[in-house]
């Protein structure tokens, strides 16, 4: 019999809920069958812990005395440029932001030891940060300079608000050229020297609900160690991506935009990240609970690594030139084995996404639900699905006259 989210929440409140993670459900469905499993299990928890560059946090620093208007001015936190195009006291810290004076890739490959992601990690861990600002001054906001320490505990608001997270699937990156390259998919050795991938496969949130039947706008999630919500589909959401018969997309597809109170999060699950030769970013921990409302949803959560395929792409020529060429498809069981075969060559694999941490997140979320600390929410609107006509578009460049 089908369940409702309300019924599951009643079970959570009574301490009777049955929760397993997206790895454990595989064996349960194998042994008991999907019908019995869907009756017995109420919630399946998922997780992912990966670099997610379109992340950031907004803060409100409070008004200074005399008052200063950040809007239209310039500001840095720990020398990293932050965005001030708002009112007087709001700042947005982008994960990929860098110090203005930093060397970037001047001495190639650059190290990118400190950027916006690191600022967010330091902020959430309670460290004092150096805020410097220059303003143009108005009658109501006369002050023109600010040079102060700030701390998360004193801020009015500190909110993680990420534009694009938890990609549903992601391609595998390789290098067909004869020189080493440094990409957002990591260091890629020449002549198919290695292959890097970046999802948690069978544990990854959107791969466990491939058609977004339960995950939608308003879904409460584990975010950065605290709690958050899905606010919208993420940028570059691409539900019309090609799928296998099991509805799993073979390449990047859905993404989500998420929000949550940074003050309740932890530096353990928001890590400043340096990609050599590429830039700085933030590694974000996300876990999404999937209510087992019926057999179909249960079957989706029992997806195995070997049933999830992704596309191999060349990052030396094809990717930079936006050439959509596949070098083959490969599943996550093969990727996780440590080696795959491409063009008859055995290629070692590495991941940028941590499966171990993804599982830890799914278990933390499981415990929160079991302990009655986390109730599920009913989405208030769906994410655009495969038939929505929603599609990823390239930039159409037009002549400026």
């Amino acid at each position, binding site marked *: 019999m089908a369940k409702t989210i309300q019924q599951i929440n009643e079970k959570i409140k009574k301490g009777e809920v049955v929760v397993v993670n997206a790895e454990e459900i595989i064996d349960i469905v194998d042994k008991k069958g999907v019908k019995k499993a869907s009756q017995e299990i109420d919630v399946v928890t998922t997780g992912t812990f990966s670099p997610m560059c379109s992340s950031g946090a907004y803060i409100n620093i409070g008004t200074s005395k005399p008052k200063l208007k950040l809007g239209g001015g310039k500001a840095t936190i720990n020398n990293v440029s932050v965005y001030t195009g708002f009112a007087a006291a709001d700042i947005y810290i982008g994960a990929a932001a860098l110090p203005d004076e930093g060397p970037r890739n001047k001495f190639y490959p650059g190290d990118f030891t400190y950027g916006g992601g690191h600022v967010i990690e330091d902020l959430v861990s309670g460290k004092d940060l150096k805020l410097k600002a220059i303003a143009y001054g108005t009658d109501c906001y006369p002050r023109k300079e600010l040079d102060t320490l700030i701390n998360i505990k004193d801020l009015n608001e500190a909110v993680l608000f990420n534009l694009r997270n938890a990609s549903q699937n992601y391609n595998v990156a390789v290098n067909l050229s004869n020189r080493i390259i440094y990409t957002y998919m990591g*260091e890629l050795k020449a002549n198919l020297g290695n292959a890097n991938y970046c999802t948690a496969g069978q544990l990854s949130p959107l791969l466990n609900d491939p058609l977004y039947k339960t995950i939608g706008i308003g879904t409460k999630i584990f975010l950065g160690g605290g709690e958050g919500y899905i606010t919208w589909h993420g940028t570059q959401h691409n539900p019309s991506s090609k799928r296998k018969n099991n509805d799993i997309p073979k390449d990047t597809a859905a993404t989500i935009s998420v929000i949550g109170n940074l003050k309740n999060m932890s530096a353990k699950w928001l*890590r400043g990240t*340096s990609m*050599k030769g590429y830039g700085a970013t933030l590694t974000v921990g996300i876990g999404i609970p999937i209510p087992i409302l019926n057999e179909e949803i249960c079957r989706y959560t029992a997806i195995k690594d070997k049933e999830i395929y992704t596309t191999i792409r060349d990052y030396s020529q094809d990717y930079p030139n936006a050439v959509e060429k596949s070098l083959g498809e490969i599943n996550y069981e093969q990727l996780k084995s440590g080696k795959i075969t491409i063009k008859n060559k055995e290629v*070692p694999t590495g*991941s940028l996404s*941590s499966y*171990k*941490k993804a599982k830890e997140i799914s278990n933390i979320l499981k415990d929160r639900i079991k302990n009655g600390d986390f109730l599920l929410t009913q989405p208030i609107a769906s994410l655009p699905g495969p038939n929505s006509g929603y599609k990823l578009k390239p930039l159409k460049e037009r002549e400026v006259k």
Partner: protein
Amino acid sequence: MGKRTLVLKFPKKLVNQPITYKLVKNYNLKLNILQAKVTPEEEGSMVIGIEGPDKKIKEGIKYLKETGVKIQPLIQDVELDKDKCTHCTYCVTLCPTQAFIVDRKTMEVSLDKDKCIACGICVDVCPYNAIKLKLG
């Protein structure tokens, strides 16, 4: 028979000389070049494994020192910071000696110190600054 792993630093004036060749030819040592690079300042660095009778190894090292090659006070240890490591496995394919071991069931990463030559490649690329080189 002995086995050593050495980190050699070549000053600019030696970069064009066939030093490793002489090590093989004159001292009959078995060489395995684990890493080699020339910096933009034209200084060279090389990590080599050498194998041969202890006496020959000693003589070979003496020859290197006499030529002006600096033998680095051997890097003792590479340490994986358990709190910082996320076990993403990114470093695993970049290690020239396959010193990172991945438990393929849990996807947990550990470092096999016997295989590690402390070349520092992983220290340089780890996105989380979780690997530290401890100089001896």
